[in-house]
Each structure stands twice: as structure tokens, then as C-alpha cells.
């Protein structure tokens, strides 16, 4: 779908009342992985809101990205329980396998590596998200396996 179709589909689905701004932005992210300048402007126009205001709302939420993201967005929990359970080694394995640092996206735009705050899996840390899917009880070996699955196109 073209960007303007995505926006108009979202607007048709949810409406343009102020309280629908979040669902519309979430829908665009679900399709595009991130909110580009054109996407934010398109939403602002549809809602008859200032572009700065839409950007302000988007920038408040960690899951409404305003920077380009890969097909698979990996978010490693950085909160204290996961950290103590070995998050550092998980991050190292991810960085080494993907050849990127945290905050970056691979050149083929397939993976983005980020950190996230607590997801509530403290009992089974370290934990990470790949898009909407949670992986827990991670080890560096497990992480490489998971990545290889996605690289193979899983």
C-alpha cells in the first residue's frame, strides 16, 4: 500500500477525533514500521492538527518510531532484573551477529536493534521483543538461533 492509502485506510477505520490519533499512528507503524515525515504530515492534515503536535505525540511513545526501522525491530529489556540476568551478553551477541550497535538498523533494512524498558518478564529474564513477539530466558546461543530463523525469512 502507498503511504497515503495507509493513512486514509487508518482514518476510515478509526475516524479523525482527537482520541483517534494514537490508534491511527499505531496503524501506520504496523504497516510501515515507522512514522516518516510524510506520514506525520498526512496524519496532521487528516486530523486538521498542527504537524508539530502530531510529532509531539509520536515522540512521546517509544513504540511510535519517528526514525526508519527495519522489518524486525528487536527491543532488549534494559531494566535491572534483565540486566542482572545477563542482558549485556545478549546485546553483545545481537550486535556481533547483526554487525550493528544498539540504535542502528542493518543496511538491508531487515533488523533494528533497540533497548526497551521493563516488559514484565522479570522472572524469566533476560527478555527481548522481536516486533510483537516476546522471547524470554535468553542465552547468547539462543539469540543467534532466533536471529538465524528471521534471517532465513521466518
Amino acid at each position, binding site marked *: 500500500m502507498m503511504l497515503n492509502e495507509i493513512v486514509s485506510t487508518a482514518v476510515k477505520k478509526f475516524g479523525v477525533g482527537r482520541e483517534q490519533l494514537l490508534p491511527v499512528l499505531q496503524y501506520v507503524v504496523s504497516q510501515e514500521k515507522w512514522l516518516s515525515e510524510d506520514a506525520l504530515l498526512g496524519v496532521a492534515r487528516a486530523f486538521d492538527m*498542527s504537524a*508539530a*503536535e502530531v*510529532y*509531539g505525540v509520536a515522540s*512521546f511513545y517509544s513504540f511510535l518510531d519517528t526514525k526508519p526501522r527495519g522489518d524486525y525491530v528487536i527491543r532488549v529489556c534494559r531494566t535491572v532484573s534483565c540486566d542482572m540476568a545477563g542482558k549485556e551478553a545478549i546485546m553483545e551477541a545481537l550486535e556481533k551477529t547483526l554487525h550493528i550497535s544498539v540504535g542502528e538498523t542493518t543496511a538491508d533494512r531487515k533488523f533494528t536493534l533497540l533497548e526497551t524498558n521493563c516488559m514484565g518478564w522479570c522472572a524469566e529474564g533476560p527478555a527481548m521483543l522481536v516486533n510483537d513477539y516476546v522471547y524470554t530466558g535468553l542465552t547468547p546461543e539462543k539469540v543467534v538461533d532466533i536471529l538465524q530463523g528471521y534471517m532465513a525469512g521466518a
Partner: protein
Amino acid sequence: METITLTINDIAVEIDKGATILDAAKKIGIRIPTLCHHDDLCAAGNCRVCVVEQKGARTLQASCVVPAAEGMQIYTNSRKVREARKTVIELLLSEHAGECTSCYKSGNCELQGLAQEYLACGDAFIDISDKSPIDISSPSIIKDDSKCIRCLRCVRTCAELQGVSALWSTHKGNKTKVETFLNKPMHYVVCTNCGQCVNRCPTGALTERNYIEEVWRAIDDPEKHVVVQTAPAVRVGLGEALGMGSGGVVTGKMVSALKRLGFDSVLDTDFTADLTIMEEGTELLARLKSALQGRKSATFPMMTSCSPGWIKFIEHEFPSLLDNLSTCKSPQQMFGALAKTYYAEKIGVDPAKMVSVSVMPCTAKKFEANRPEMYSSGFKDVDYVLTTRELAHMIRQAGLNFADLEDGKFDSIMGESTGAAVIFGATGGVMEAALRTAYEIVTGREVPFKNLNIEPVRGMEGVKAAGIKVENVKDEWKFLEGAELKVAVAHGLVNARKVMQEAEKGMSPYHFVEIMACPGGCIGGGGQPIPTSPAIRLKRAEAIYEADEALPLRKSHENPEIAAIYREFLGEPLGHKSHELLHTHYTPRNRT
């Protein structure tokens, strides 16, 4: 109205239900310090400087947002309050780059004032001020995030008073910032340069871009002939910035000060305000003529074009309605174009050696002077625009004791003006001035209002509407016989938008609409002395009408220098020369 009674520092106070503790304290003359609170804006309660102690409450209360309640016992100056406030101020200082010795806002900075009052320590906490580069992209406004304390007055101003929201609160927690869309430079977003945010910023995070050094350099250059023009609203604001209290008319002292600063010609934007009335009034009558005689189509309502913040607003937000705008340049730009042509020729100065400076109540005028359309004289028509505040600064630098200056007189040729021009400074003033002249052109009689004061277009209501019946017209205006001229006046862009939305739907009942970007009109402009409040603007507006009534001539067409310029140079209103020098066109812009 239901009232409640509480005590503040053991003094009983009765106040309307719904009022805040801060309101109650004000009522009995107790000052509670505030930063994020502003009389023009909705409550925010985010800075916590206004905390007070409530007997029996576990925590301190932010007095600007907590409603006063029956039986409350409030203490505004206990040890607990004083210590908390000091810490709050020190925390604010930790996120503020306190370069007080070099800061342009020094001396008029609310944070600096409070830090001094509470003897707060600038480095009590680690420095977490923002390190982004200063945004100097705009010719009007400088944004320095390192001085921002995130009180969000600017964000509320841009949203509530102007309906523009060029600035918004972005990110969260300790990363919260005030940003434009995608943090683009101010020059590349929908900002209208109105400067209302500058008027309300409690620190030096948002200031006007000042051209003080450039103007001094021009004055110091013996080769240059420096011409200065002063806008109507400056004469009712300047005194405030020089310790004289609000509401005084200081025209004479201002002229003397400008002469002592070394300007070679001290002239008056009011002259071109009168000229604007001649051009814009004629344009309105011409539009009515083509509409009513049905020969050509004409676009209504015609809208005024004096306010450059408003012009940029319509270019961004309603580009399909640009034909509604009068083609008249603003008085500042008419003046600039004439200074380097007509005036230069009259006084025998090479326009290449002329520097044209204007003193404006406005920050958007700086942007306007830099527009590519504004080179009709063959040179940059207005070289530098100073705000009222910058002129006050120069007067202080020069060591002049402003209050004691004698009353000076504007130089001639472009220095004479009428009461109709002075009232350009207040909302409704351009409309009133235009009606005084247009009605008289058409009927041969003065407008049917007592003492020429057209009260229905005066005052601080956001949108004002009026109708004026045109009867017993002169022969050449027969087509207007019995017509009712419907007009509206809006000030503050949030009100302008209401009028524009009506026009966009083709539902506007008006023939002529005056719009000023700033609340109260130019007297409340973004270049006027800080602070501003509804009460201060009311005083400035009263001073404007006082100045009007004090002048012997009160109708633009009676200005003898206006008659002279048409006779000797321009020919007639809307004539060839006028088109070349006094009229302009507009540019559609996007909504980023």
C-alpha cells in the same frame, strides 16, 4: 456566585468558588512567585515555584492550580515553603545555561529574578542543560534550548492564543523538549514569527533576533544617511521598557531619543498608515464597484494586509484565500519603498547611501523586511527592523534619561500623520481609519459616530462585527446607495482562523475584514515590552485612542503630506506608481 472563605498567612479571605489559592493570595496583596503561570494562558502547574503549605496536608500545594477550599489554612512564607522554592529554583537552574552576564534577556528574565530573590545557587545540582545548537535560522526569533526550563508557556501561547502550534512539547521525562515539527529550524515551519512566545518566555530561550549592532554601525558610518520610522504602537509601549509604567503616550520623547541616538531623519510609519488607508480604502471601493456593477468579479471579504504574522499564517493555512488579501503592502514596507525613492529624491540623498531602519512592536516585521518581494525601490526597502525592546535597549546604552527628554517633532515630508494612523496600533484601528475615510469619500459626510469614534470595532473581544448603512451617496457612488457595508475585526490568530474557516466555506457575510496576528493588535505585538497581560494591553489601547483624540487631524485623507505625495509623486491611489511601490503579492506555503 458561591464564595468560600480560607485563611492565607492567618488573614481571612473570601473568594469565588473555583478560584485558585494563587488568586486568593493576589486578592489580599500577597505575592506568590510563579514561572509557568501566565495571565493569558491556561494553568500548567509544572514549574512548582508557586508551592505553598496547607495546614494538615501531607505535601506542599502548587497554588496556581489548586482551587481554594472552604476553611483552608495556607502559609506562603513558612520555612518549609522557602526551602522548597529555593530547591525548585536551583533544580530549574540546573537545566538552564545560566550565562547571565552575556544573555540578551538579562535584567528582564523571570528565572534570574527569582534566583536572585531566593539567593539560589546556580550550580547546586549538576548541569543538565540542553546542548543543541542555537536556532538562528529565522530573521525574527532565536530559539536557544539551553535556556529552556520547559514551562511550556510558549507551547500554550502558540496553541491557545494563535492556534498555530508551531511549537509543541516533544519526547518525555527528562528528555522533554520544546520543538518544532521534527525539530526543523524555525524558519522552515509554520511559525508566523509573531513573537507572542517571546513575550511570554520567562527566560532567554526565545528572544527576538536583535539588529542593534547593525544599526549602531550604520549610524556611526558618516557616509550613510540613516532614516528611521516608528510604528504607531511603539509610542504607547516604549515608556514601559524604560521604567515609566504602562499606558503613557511618549511620542515626543521617543522622537528626541531617536535624534540623540544619531538617526539622520526621524520619520513616522503613521504617515504610510495614512497612505495605506488611501490605497486600501480605494481598493475596497474598487472591489465593491466591480461586484455591484457586475462587470468584473471581485473577491470578498477583502482582508487587511498590515500584519506580517497574519500574512504568513494565511499563506500557510489558507493558501486558497490569498486573493482575499488586500494587495497593499504594510505601512512599514510602503515607507521603505518610498524612503529610498520619493524621500531620497526630495532631500537629495543617493538611495544607495541610505539605510532604512524601522522601529516596530513586532518581530514578524523582521521577516517581512527580508521577503524577496520587498525590494521595489531597487534596494532593500527596509534594511533593519528593531523592536520596541531593542530601541529601549539602545536608549539605555546611549545613557539617555528617557523620562526627562524634551518632546521632539518628527521631520517633515514623511513625518505628518493623523489620528486615523495612530489607531492602527490597536485591534479595530485599521477598520476604523478605513471607514472614516471611505464613508466620507462615498457620502461627502463624516462617519455617523459620535466624535468619529467607531465604538463597535473597538475593544478586546476576539471577533467583532459591525454594519454601516451607506445612504445619500454622491453621484459617482450611486451603486452603493442603501447598501450596508458589513465588516469584521479579529485579533489573535486563533480568532483569525474562525473568520477564515467561514470564508473558506463561502459563508462569510462580510465585505471587509481586519485581522491582526497579535492579541489586542500591535499594542500587544511580539516586539513590545515584556511582560504583557490583558490589563497591560488594555492600558496601551486606551493610550492609543487618547493619542488619536489629541491630534488635530483624525482622518487619513486630510493629511497634508499625503495630499502632497499624491500631487507630486504617486498621482492617484492605485495608480501606476502605487502599484509599483506600494502593492505586493503573496506566496502559498505548506503546513510543516
